[in-house]
């Protein structure tokens, strides 16, 4: 088994009376790209700040490269490259100056990769940070992080201000990192991005990890969407356990509903005697998965499993 770059075990964090993290447990093996998902305020940025040794955890264990990030930040930081969720820059410095500075503070320097990235992102390094748009501030952090040679890349909602073209550039860069065997932790709200790039995902909600695994596994865990047409009226099916979100036609012979994987066999058995004319099933998209897990219903459903 590959070594874990990040290990989190029952990590807790309180800010005064708010419990930002209640129980965060997950691992990130070397060479993996992990999508870190969750609704606003779920605790993604807080988890990342703990991994960077910026916040002191109130319970549990955390290691990065096998080191405690709070005590040994000096040992882990040179091996990490980080892009924060909100990028704020010294207003009087130009973007180019800040990129060079960030690289140098990590013992590296402006390199060919930096210039290449500036071109790809169509970034003007001469402007003062004060005058940059949100997307351009984000680019400063991205260019500095991507042109740094590191083992672990941590991105906290890196594309939140980028236009689709630059977003694509970012995705290509991450795929390059993946090919080069780097480890990436990517927090994001953009599902297509996660679907394209990530080997596995972790979902956090209200400070707790509620699901983790690779995409296929997770899709399996959640419901299928079924459209069906029968000869005889099928309204009775609505009462069947494991069936949700029921919509039927006026003639009661067409329906559109969601069904739990484990209830599928029972539902099909109930459908057969009704004379199935047409049946389509769609696998859940990540979007369905999201809505499933982000809503309260998702949690109670999950707890019931």
């Amino acid at each position, binding site marked *: 088994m590959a070594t874990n770059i990040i290990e989190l075990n029952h990590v807790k964090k309180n800010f005064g009376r708010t419990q930002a993290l209640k129980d965060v447990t997950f691992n990130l093996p070397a060479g993996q790209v992990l999508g870190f998902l969750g609704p606003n305020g779920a605790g993604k940025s807080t988890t990342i*700040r703990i991994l*960077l*040794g*910026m*916040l*002191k955890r109130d319970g549990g264990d955390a290691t990065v490269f096998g080191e405690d990030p709070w005590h040994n*930040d*000096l040992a882990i*930081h*040179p091996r*990490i490259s*980080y892009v*924060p969720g*909100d*990028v*704020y*820059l*010294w*207003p*009087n*410095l*130009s*973007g*180019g*100056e*800040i*990129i*060079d*500075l*960030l690289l*140098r*503070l*990590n*013992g590296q320097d*402006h390199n060919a990769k930096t210039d290449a990235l500036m071109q790809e992102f169509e970034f003007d*390094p*001469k*402007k*003062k940070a*004060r*005058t940059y748009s949100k997307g351009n501030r984000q680019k400063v*952090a991205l260019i*500095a992080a991507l042109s740094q040679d590191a083992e672990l890349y*941590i991105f906290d909602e890196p594309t939140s201000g980028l236009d689709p073209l630059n977003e694509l550039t970012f995705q290509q860069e991450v795929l390059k990192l993946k090919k080069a065997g780097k480890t990436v932790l990517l927090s994001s709200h953009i599902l297509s991005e996660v679907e394209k790039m990530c080997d596995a995902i972790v979902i956090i909600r209200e400070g707790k990890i509620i699901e983790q695994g690779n995409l296929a596994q997770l899709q399996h865990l959640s419901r299928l969407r079924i459209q069906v047409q029968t000869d005889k009226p099928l309204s009775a099916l609505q009462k069947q356990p494991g069936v949700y979100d029921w919509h039927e036609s006026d003639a009661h012979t067409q329906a559109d509903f969601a069904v739990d994987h484990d209830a599928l066999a029972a539902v099909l058995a109930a459908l057969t005697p009704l004379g199935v004319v047409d049946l389509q099933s769609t696998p859940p998209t990540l979007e369905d998965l999201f809505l499933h897990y982000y809503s309260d219903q998702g949690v109670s459903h999950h707890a019931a499993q």
Partner: protein
Amino acid sequence: MLRSDRHVGFLLRANLKQNLKYSLVWIVILEMMVASGAFKMQTIMESTGKGVQDLLNMLRMPGMAGLFGAMPKGVALNSATVFAGVMMVFMVILDALYVMPLMVKNTRGQEESGLLEMVRARTVGRTAAVAAALCELVIVNVILFVLYVGTIVSLNLKGADFNGTFLFTLALIAANLMFGVFTLLIAQLASTARGANMIAYTVLGAAYLVRTVTDIENTDWTWLSPIGWAQKTNAYSDNNYWPVLLMFGVTLLLAAAAWQLAKSRDLGTGILPERAGRARAAGYLRSIPALLFRTTWGVVLGWLIGAVVAGGIFGGVLNSVGDILKTNPLYRQMMSVTQVNAANKTMVLSFLALYILLFVAFGVVAGAQVVFRLKEDEDKGYLGVIHATKQTRQTISLSYYLIGLAVSLVVFVVGILMVYYTGNASLKDPLAAEYLTRMLVAGLPAVFALVSLATLLVGWVPRLSAVFWVYMGIGLLVQMFGSLLNLPKDSGKFSPFGWLNQAPLHAVQTPWLSAMIIITVVFLILGVIGYRQRDVA
């Protein structure tokens, strides 16, 4: 029709609510200053002891005239005239220190944080922020006016008629409106809130310095300083209303200018166009100290120029200060030449003992600002990316702390050197090097002790930075005013300002010197430890 100032009321209410705590604290402080000042003058002046004579003698000394403002010539000295003479300059400054940051916060500050953009998108007019700030300025000044008049009237100072009280307070309010509106204008011109505040403080400081010199040298020239206009009302004696009219006139002009600028300017920009920066960082920019240097050198340079100018000015007036015969020609008959020289020297040294406190404060403010930037930069989110690099918290915090100490050192030492050398150039009887040493040996540890207190706070409880400024302000005021207000001799000893032992008149005592050095080292170390163990953003 849409007007450019629509929804002012909405903004005003939001601002008043936002600034409530800040304003309340300041208004209470200001009101207490007026009340305790008036009360103290009354107790001293209306007692029968020798306190009256001491006070009057003290007020005639050039050093005091420079500090508080010259007493008008040929005026009967009673509780009311002395109160007006001592408090006018002081209260103008304090009032301005209250409203200037308030005006910046309500306009440029909100623009910077993006708040105004959000508000403005909701069909709030272009000049609404300026208008709302103006309204708030007027409101707080009306409140201050009522409080001040009420206090002075109720204390019933001897020699105070209502006309005089009305004029005294009106002059304060007029000056405050003038400085407030001036700050509004600056906030439209400067490109950052920090810059706007700096410019406003600098102009206030310059106005104070100009009238310090003219009050010592020749009071006719005091008209050159806007603060001098308030002094020239001579409340309770001449009751001259013209300067008030002058201040109101200037206020209107400044307000019109600020209004016009706000109407024609783009949101989020200053009047000066933004120049392009460098594509690559300079070779030296590769460490936290270098970054701090790069982002603060402008401000530090400003402080240095301030120290040079202030030092030059105070040095330049030393000769007039030491001219005891000018203060009281009667001495000519009573004293021999050597006696006169000795008395002159004592006067110069007492003057320096008073003004060294200002230079200590100057150095501390310059240095502590750098230290508190650690918190500010963190709050603004600049340090997020830095913390993830291999720079440790220790390096980051120590960089801010040590550079803060270095800045305070340079500002203080340069100021004192300027005083000493320009002073000796003007004095007929130059001061020995010993006195320079005394000032540096006593002043520098005091500067360091205070700046290291700032490091302690930033390390452990960054929210309490306001406490630092209050402590420092009160320490400075008590030490400077203590003798004037007849406070017990040791009442200034709760802060390093009281530990200087009136250097250069006397040398600092060894126990206090060691205490200051130990405090510096211990607080600095604790500051680093604190920053290592707390959460950072």
